[in-house]
């Protein structure tokens, strides 16, 4: 395109020179023709803008899960009798990605024809945002001018946070210690067995006993409830642009959901503390993960949800102190968070702080608090590798 423009400008300047020295049909005619070319290109581009159609379609509902690829179709259609010389499609790429298609590909659309492409859409973060075709770049047939046409009907979808199955935690040692202490304190509940009812968690099946009894037997926890895990979730938002705050929020949610699922699968009750309409204490029991996950999908981070207020209220309510271990998932380890950690650990409760931040390596904050540890989780990358 640049070459064509250079040639055009040179010719136009030459035509200016021509009319300066020569009169008559040819000199003025060539000048008029060259001057008219941009006008014709403009008319052409405007025609294409009005006659051009984009159709987008997702295979399935408009609710996706972050990190999960979904089939995505888009069609460029030319309903007019004129040919579309060069159409280029640009996709949203900040928060989502289209694989298999290049933004640089240009398409020619003969009259009454279309191009249908199947590809894969991957949304990186949870939230509600636009995906698919962001804008269309139209070029004229002389490749002199382009016009960028914003997609007037963008494809808006809701993306749920990803459920990450953690198989182990790096803070297992701390957990084990917590469990040992609990055992010493004889706080482990009694375990009874009963016959298997359909719907029971297969993980509770006592296989040894079942083999003996010749029927499926499951454990039933009675007595004191096993001490749960507390998770404190920073609910604040930092930044105005989605690209600033979404990755961090997404990772916070993933971490909280992943931890909750991890313990829920091991029949450990989890109590999540976060700021909703006030400070919310969300206890996730044995079959309560799905409900919790739905609540997390609908959860919204806000600037007004000050973590300091959350920490203070948690400390005042004292429910946190019945936890066997506490996880704190925050975006930064400020003095208020450190004070909260100190307060909790002073009750002999181990605290693991996950700081979701881009800063890592040498900037890892340290806590000189007994039974407390801190780890930095970057917003991108596999959570499993970090936790």
């Amino acid at each position, binding site marked *: 395109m640049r070459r064509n423009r250079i040639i055009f400008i040179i010719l136009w300047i030459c035509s200016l020179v021509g009319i300066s020295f020569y009169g008559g049909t040819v000199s003025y005619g060539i000048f008029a023709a060259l001057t*008219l070319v941009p006008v014709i290109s403009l008319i052409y581009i405007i025609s294409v803008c009005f006659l051009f159609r984009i159709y987008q379609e997702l295979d399935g509902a408009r609710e996706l899960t972050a990190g999960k690829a979904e089939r995505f179709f888009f069609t460029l259609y030319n309903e007019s009798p004129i040919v579309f010389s060069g159409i280029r499609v640009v996709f949203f790429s900040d928060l989502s990605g289209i694989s298999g298609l290049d933004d640089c590909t240009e398409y020619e659309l003969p009259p009454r024809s279309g191009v249908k492409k199947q590809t894969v859409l991957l949304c990186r973060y949870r939230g509600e945002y636009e995906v698919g075709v962001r804008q269309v770049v139209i070029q004229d047939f002389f490749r002199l001018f382009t016009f960028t046409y914003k997609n007037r009907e963008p494809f808006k979808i809701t993306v749920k946070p990803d459920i990450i199955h953690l198989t182990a935690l790096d803070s297992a040692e701390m957990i084990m210690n917590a469990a040992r202490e609990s055992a010493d304190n004889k706080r482990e509940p009694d375990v009874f067995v009963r016959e298997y009812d359909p719907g029971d968690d297969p993980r509770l099946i006592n296989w040894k006993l079942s083999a003996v009894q010749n029927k499926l037997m499951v454990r039933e926890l009675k007595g004191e409830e096993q001490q749960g895990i507390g998770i404190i979730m920073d609910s604040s938002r930092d930044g105005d642009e989605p690209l600033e705050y979404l990755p961090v929020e997404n990772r916070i949610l993933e971490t909280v959901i992943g931890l909750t699922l991890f313990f829920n699968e091991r029949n450990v009750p989890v109590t999540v503390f976060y700021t909703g309409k006030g400070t919310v204490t969300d206890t996730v029991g044995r079959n309560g993960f799905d409900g919790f996950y739905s609540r997390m999908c609908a959860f919204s981070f806000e600037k007004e949800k000050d973590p300091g207020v959350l920490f203070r209220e948690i400390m005042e309510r004292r429910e946190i102190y019945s936890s066997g271990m506490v996880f704190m998932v925050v975006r930064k380890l400020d003095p208020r968070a450190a004070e909260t950690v100190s307060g909790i650990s002073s009750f002999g409760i181990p605290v693991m702080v996950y700081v979701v931040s881009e800063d890592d390596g040498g900037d890892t904050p340290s806590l000189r608090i007994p039974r407390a540890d801190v780890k930095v989780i970057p917003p991108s990358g596999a959570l499993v590798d970090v936790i």
Partner: protein
Amino acid sequence: MISGLLYDLVNVIPLCAVASLLVYGGMGRGFFHMESGTAALIPAIASAVICVFLGRAPMKYRAAALGVMAVAAAGAVPAMGREYLAEVLSENICVLWMMLLGVICYAAAKAAERFRPLKLVVALSALAVLIYMMVTGCHTSRLVLSAAVFYISLAMAEETEYRWKKEGKGGDVRYTVRLLPFLMLLPLFLLLFKAPEKPYSWQFVKDFLRGARIRYELLVQTLNENKSWDSEGTNMGFSEKGNLAGSLGNDPYEAVIITSDRAGDSRVYLSGKIFDSFDGRDWKKTDLSPMDYRAYDVLETAAAVMTADPGREDDYLKYETLHIEYSGIRTSRVFVPGHALYVAADPGVLSAGGDISFSGRGKPPYTVKYFRVNKSYEGFRRLCDKGSSINKDIFRVSKKLLWDKWVEKGNGDLLAPNPDEQTYEGYLDYLDRVREFYGQEMQVSERTQRLLDETTEGVTSDNEKLCMIERYLSQMKYSTAPGELPDHIRTPGDFLDYLLFESGEGYCVHYATAFVLMARSMGVPARYVQGYSTAADKKKTVIMSDCAHAWPEAHIEGVGWVAYEPTPGFKTETGWEVASETTGDKESEHEKKEGPIPEEDLPDEEEEAVLEDHAVKHRPVKIYVPVVLAAAFLLLFFTADLILRKIRYAHMDARGKVLESGRQTLKLLKKHGFSLEPGETLDELQKRAGGSVPEEMLTQIGIYETALYADHKMGEEDVNRMEDNNRELMKYVYRKKFSGSFKV
């Protein structure tokens, strides 16, 4: 197919148009016997279009076309007669040439379609031809330009498409055809666009730049109040310096605006600065006397007039007012016409060596009272030739009369100068100064002297001699770029010799200088004046900077300073008609009328009628015979074709007939919009067409498909079914077509 046809036409026709019009233009009307190039265009394009259609037509139709032409040609020979045919052909050989040109253009266009670089070469050649015609000034019709531009734009669009890497490229033909609505805008506009004949003057750019330059120079003048205006050098404008600059610029701007109470002279001279000494290269002003030269000049002239022709002073002098304001200049100079009596400026003016300038912080606008001299009046010329002598009494009386007649009564002006300030002794001093500063001795070379003697031979008075010199110089060459003065010119005499015998050209400064020097060499006091000179026949006149001028003035004893105009092309008679000079009626012009054509030259009417009748009777025979033969050939050809096809069909085996019928089915469907698409099977076509055509009429497609691909023996039953269905299909299709409800 339509796309292909259109594509061929848009490639062939512009090329044909350009080529034929260029050939017509090159060979001339005489060769073509055609009044216009458009007529030459028609046979070329017609033959090219025929070639296009034949090129796209099936072989059968090409054969038919060639046969028709051959038969028509063969029939024309006996019908018209060899002699007549030869005569017609020789008279219209140009038509055949143009038709051949059309065929050549078709071949070239087809070759260019096939070989992309060739198309580029042709397009660039068309552009080169246009440029050549532009440079050489050949007249180019809008049709040629439009056609050439269209072809070039087509080639550019295709080249761009070829180099464009994108998905879905469908091939040049359809792509180009679909772009035609946009590409056609260019030639359509060019056909309607009437181009000027002259190059563009970029006047708005020049005006803008000039305006900017003037604003800048005014700003500089404003910041340096004491600095006067000087636009010497390569500019065009008034200069306070007396050097003879090399060449003049050409960038005029508005300088001065003068307003008169009534329409004035055909030309007015506004004096800005008077010079007295010339060193061969530059004029200098050494006379700085504060004496009011202008008042004495007026008195001298008035006295001469009153003495020579008492009571008829109005025939010689008119007392008028001029209002002057400066527009694009800033100077302390006061520009005044000759014989200005006084200048009313606020706060006042000063006089120095005849020049007037603003005193203190005075600036325009200002008013000048002056005497306009009737220089074209014969009486004034006689006065100048004769000269005059003014004694004390004449001086006194004249002064009184001057004031009484004009100044007091003129406009009731309270600012009139005090007449007591001009005395006779002062007048004598004034004359001495005139002789001293403006009558400097002037040495000329021998050849200049010879020239002067030859030029002024036969006349005696100073004025007559000066008029001869003025006439001689005004016949030399005027040039705004005579070049710089050579270094060897060091004296006035050198300058004169250089101008008169070497250079021979110059502009006002050169000729004014030469006049002054020549006048002085004859003992006549003369001075070099710089100012403005312009036509001033309206009440309000805008004087442009390029009206800056230099002229000589000579002092005629007893008459005063008289301005002369030796610059070639600038001489105009200034003055007004006096009653005694009114001439008689002008002779009326005879009109030439063309008389009627002599009767004996008119053709005999009877004879004409006979000839015409004969021509009319024989024309149909000459034309209709070949036409009828051609029509007959066509009829026979297609009839024979039909018969042969039927015979061939009858001799086919069943499978052959099924295949032939199948092809007929596809042709019928194609005619009405259901073509077999690339990669489409017959079964898919049947399903697709089944949406519009009753299915029972399409069952033969299955049989056809079987015959094509399956090793199945066809029987008469299959043939009959094929034929029956085709008949039904044909009826259905044509019925729908004529009823207009066939949905494609």
